[in-house]
């Protein structure tokens, strides 16, 4: 689909997915208070990155694939995964997307092209390149979307993979969601380009690749930028590195604690650690979800009543997912021993 053809319906679709992600993530977060103990381990939310995720995946078509990190709720939701199965997975239940074996960090929905995630920073980047090799061999113009964080670009896996992807002209789009932080480290504290005031897309030069930076809070800008990269990849002209600038609106993840300590989401690190409340509040003012709602309403694409109705419908959908997940039984104990081997 070219940028021109982004009709009203499609714009509403984008907004709908953004809102579904936001609602899902807020509901996940509320689980920590509403149903303590139901979510375990480490959960990472995508709130703030919705425009980037949906703007990118609006180019996804049958045969394409997407891979991501532990911060993975947004992608399958956009690709059509059932939020009931997703929530059940986050709650560790038998009806979970991954039968309760993977949890929040490892959502996978192969039927919808969401091939998997790795919880190890950077490790999923070569996986995406491998899937792109498979796509290249199929010769149907399929593309692989590879999502990862700014921090991941400091792993060797990023470097090694982009070089090969460029050499082999793999049909992949590398979307770096630069949310300004790796946990409690700012990008400028850990990245030499950032420290020098340069965009992270400069790194593409080390691989003779196009590198572009886009405002990841604007779904239409992401749509256009990623769209060009996708076209390039489908045409066999190789991969692109897209730096998509977002701001995560929650902390990195829930607190890290041994069993027995109730988990919760702390305040965002900008406030809790750096005391930069203004930074966080500026991000909140630029919150992509209400902003895009405003754009659509101002543009006459959506009425405010329609938007409210949509929000209510989505709230219901996600509420249903929670009820479903809470009712879903735990997996049978022996199922813990299945699936190690095919």
């Amino acid at each position: 689909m070219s940028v021109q053809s982004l009709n009203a319906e499609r714009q509403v679709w984008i907004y709908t997915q953004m809102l579904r992600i936001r609602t899902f993530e807020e509901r996940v977060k509320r689980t920590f208070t509403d149903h303590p103990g139901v979510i375990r381990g480490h959960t990472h939310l995508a709130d703030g990155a919705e425009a980037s995720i949906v703007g990118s995946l609006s180019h996804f078509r049958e045969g394409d694939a997407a891979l991501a990190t532990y911060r993975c709720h947004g992608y399958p939701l956009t690709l059509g995964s059932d939020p009931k199965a997703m929530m059940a997975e986050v709650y560790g239940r038998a009806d979970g997307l991954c039968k309760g074996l993977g949890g929040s960090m490892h959502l996978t929905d192969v039927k919808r092209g969401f091939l998997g995630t790795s919880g190890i920073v950077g490790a999923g980047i070569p996986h995406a390149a491998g899937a792109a090799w498979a796509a290249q061999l199929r010769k149907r113009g399929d593309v692989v979307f590879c999502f990862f964080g700014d921090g991941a670009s400091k792993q060797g896996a990023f470097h090694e993979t982009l070089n090969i992807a460029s050499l082999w002209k793999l049909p992949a789009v590398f979307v770096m969601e630069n949310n300004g932080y790796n946990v409690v480290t700012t990008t400028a504290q850990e990245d030499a380009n950032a420290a020098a005031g340069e965009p992270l897309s400069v790194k593409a030069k080390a691989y003779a690749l196009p590198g572009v930076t886009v405002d990841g809070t604007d779904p239409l800008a992401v749509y256009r930028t990623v769209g060009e990269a996708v076209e390039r990849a489908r045409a066999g002209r190789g991969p692109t590195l897209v730096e998509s600038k977002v701001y995560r609106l929650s902390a990195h993840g829930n607190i890290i604690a041994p069993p027995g300590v109730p988990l919760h989401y702390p305040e965002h690190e900008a406030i809790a650690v750096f005391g930069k409340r203004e930074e966080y509040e500026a991000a909140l003012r630029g919150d992509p979800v209400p902003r895009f709602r405003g754009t659509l309403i101002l543009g006459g694409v959506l009425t405010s009543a329609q938007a409210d109705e949509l929000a209510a419908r989505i709230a219901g959908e996600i509420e249903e997912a929670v009820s479903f997940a809470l009712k879903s039984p735990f997996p049978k104990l022996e199922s813990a021993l299945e699936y190690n081997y095919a």
Partner: protein
Amino acid sequence: MALMPYIAAIDAGIHQEMRRDPKVLYFGQNLATTENHAFLAAYGPERVRVTPISETAEIGIAVGAAMAGLRPVVELYMAEFMLVAMDQVVNEAPRMRYMSGGQVKVPLVLKAGYGFTCGWAGQHTGTLSALFMGVPGLKVAVPATAADAKGLMASAIRDDNPVVFLHHYLLTLEQGEVPDGEYLVPFGKADVRRAGADVTIVATGWMVPRALGAAQQLAKEGIDAEVIDPRTVAPLDLDTILKSVDKTGRVVLVDQATRHASVSSVIAAELAEHGFRALRAPIIQVTAADTTIPYSEPLEAYVLPDEARIVAGVRTVLK
């Protein structure tokens, strides 16, 4: 003596050595990103630094800094993150001295948590001690108490060799009495955590409290178990274990790792050679089930060794 959590005791061990020796560095991801950080405030940015998510460079830098005379402590958070840099851990740090014919030494500490089995699922929960224990030149500490955490960390920093210091994540907040002031726990000295005459139980890390719990249960039935915590698995204090087996003739080895990737296998093999004459029953290993760790709570509990399984193991060797 002061009561403090395991995690605070580790910090105390690092402080003890950083105060004492200006050559000790401490660095890693997500530490010291503001001036409030305790170590940064105390020792300054020359010795305390945040790193990018670059384990290969982090550990490699530690190797080079150690070769150049410093004593780096690398904060790695989770043992699995060493896997992306495994070459530096097992094929660089412990080899440089040897290959140089003894010209360099490589004193460094790789501090990493492990065994975080509380919903961290498949990639963050491993018990990897056995991956490191057999590498000549490398030492491996696995403290199970706050006091050992402090004392072994301090000894690790003072050691002139590379040390993998594995703290158990599930013990993070466990309180324990920790000696004040300079405190060192020697490497290669097992701790007999409970003396007993009927059976020897060997366990490390989070399995130690499980083993002690099992011993308590067994005591009610009149079974007197000895519980040994090796504290370091390289060097491994076989003498203490052999002495115990000489007395009891029966052994249960407990390991949170999967069976074929366990320290318990290595101990069993040593006992099968050097303790054979004393053995009056098969050596039972109580390990994790042979599986990646599942996310869901009941499944996770199902695949891990627990008190009941240790008790059952003891019953088997007493049959």
